């Protein structure tokens, strides 16, 4: 994993894009941009550009997948062929299928699944441009899309990665740091419940480094959560009330 081709942290302690180790990339979140979805969100995090949409709850098809006492969330994380350096085949890779599953499982704890028995909610995520930590940005956007769809939730879910490069624990890894660093820890958090809903890691960390990395990632999640709230409030500040 660690092929130290170039220094990822310079003498001043700054990263390749000039960030401090504990600094997030610039983030922009837009809400409700797709007219055909029940809820949608767009996120730019550094060079990541990701669209997420939620459809439902609606009757499950095929019907045998429906559960009698709660709804089912289905998730598809998909990368555009032009989103990465080498063109990616549009058919889903094993990586995309795994990420679809962990993203789904990071969102399930927040939804009141029992309110909607026998139904399904489909979450579609399209990565238009990828630059590291796309699963985290996808979760951040997908939870905003779910809120925009009016799905009752316990909390938003904000996600952020931390990792280790050049013996330094850093926040919000971009692609080069992910590929050349020595560890990557993506974390998703329901901030008001203090509930971690996604935790993965690859690479090697001492237990002390791991603790620092998780704490840094959680701090990142809380900062991103503030931006999610801001985006939703900006969208709805002019809406008075919906007709029921």
């Amino acid at each position, binding site marked *: 994993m660690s092929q130290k081709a170039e220094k990822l942290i310079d003498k001043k302690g700054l990263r390749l894009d000039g960030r401090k180790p504990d600094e997030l990339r610039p983030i922009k979140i837009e809400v409700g941009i797709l007219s*055909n*979805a*029940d*809820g949608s969100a767009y996120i730019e995090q550094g060079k990541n550009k990701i669209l997420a949409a939620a*459809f*439902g*709850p*609606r*009757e499950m098809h095929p019907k045998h997948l429906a559960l*009698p006492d709660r709804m089912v969330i289905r998730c598809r994380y998909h990368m555009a062929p032009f989103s990465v350096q080498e063109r990616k085949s549009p058919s889903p890779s094993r990586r995309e299928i795994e990420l679809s599953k962990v993203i789904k499982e990071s969102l399930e704890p*927040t939804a*009141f699944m029992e309110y*909607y*028995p*026998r*139904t*399904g*909610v489909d979450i579609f995520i399209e990565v238009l441009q990828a630059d590291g930590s796309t699963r985290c940005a996808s979760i951040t956007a997908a939870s905003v899309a779910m*809120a*925009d*769809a*009016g*799905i*009752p*939730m*316990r*909390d*938003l879910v904000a996600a952020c990665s931390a990792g280790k490069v050049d013996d330094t624990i850093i926040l919000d890894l971009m692609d080069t740091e992910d590929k050349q660093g020595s560890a990557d820890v993506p974390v998703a958090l*329901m*901030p*008001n*419940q203090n509930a971690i809903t996604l935790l993965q890691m690859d690479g090697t960390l001492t237990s002390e480094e791991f603790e620092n990395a998780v704490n840094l990632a959680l701090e990142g999640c809380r900062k991103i959560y503030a931006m999610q*709230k801001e985006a*939703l*409030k900006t969208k*709805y*500040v002019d*809406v*008075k*009330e*919906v*007709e*029921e």
Partner: protein
Amino acid sequence: MNSSERKSGKIVLPGDSLGVIEEFTPDPGTYVKDGIIYSGIVGRALLDLSNKRVSVYPLVHGAKIPKIESIVLGQVSSVQAENASIRIFKIGNKQLSGFFTGILHISDVQPSYVESMFDVCKPGDIMRAEVISEKNQVYHLSTKDRNLGVVYAFCSQCGYELEAKRQTAYCPRCGKIEKRKTTLDYGKGAL
């Protein structure tokens, strides 16, 4: 509670805490965990200080599924002698991105006796109905009210939109006369 009070509430999001249960009674739009009341939706929080209640009024068209008393709009997908199956695509004002299946039984069509379901609706028709039960995980519908029934019907012979004529439905293209349980606003109802 008047609407200006509702509108004045501050915007809250899922997970925002609204108070504690010792202080307020939680109303729709909220949930309780460990004694704390949180918002469960995107909406405007309303603290009713005189009655000590807190609720959240939705700012987005909430996720909706058919509930008892919901007025739904759907398309007839199949008709048998005693039952019609309806694909519901609208619940109240909310257009669905998918659909739900509802069943209309012949005994729930109108207060008086109906001999055959084929005189009520035909596949392709658009019907307005009320959800009356969720027994056995099936949405059972009723069209007993005068505002409920077929809103738009199509000729079973040529597919053209039928016009209401006295007690029957008439096809202006091929002249066929058919039977339907129509609504008062037949041919004009909003979709």
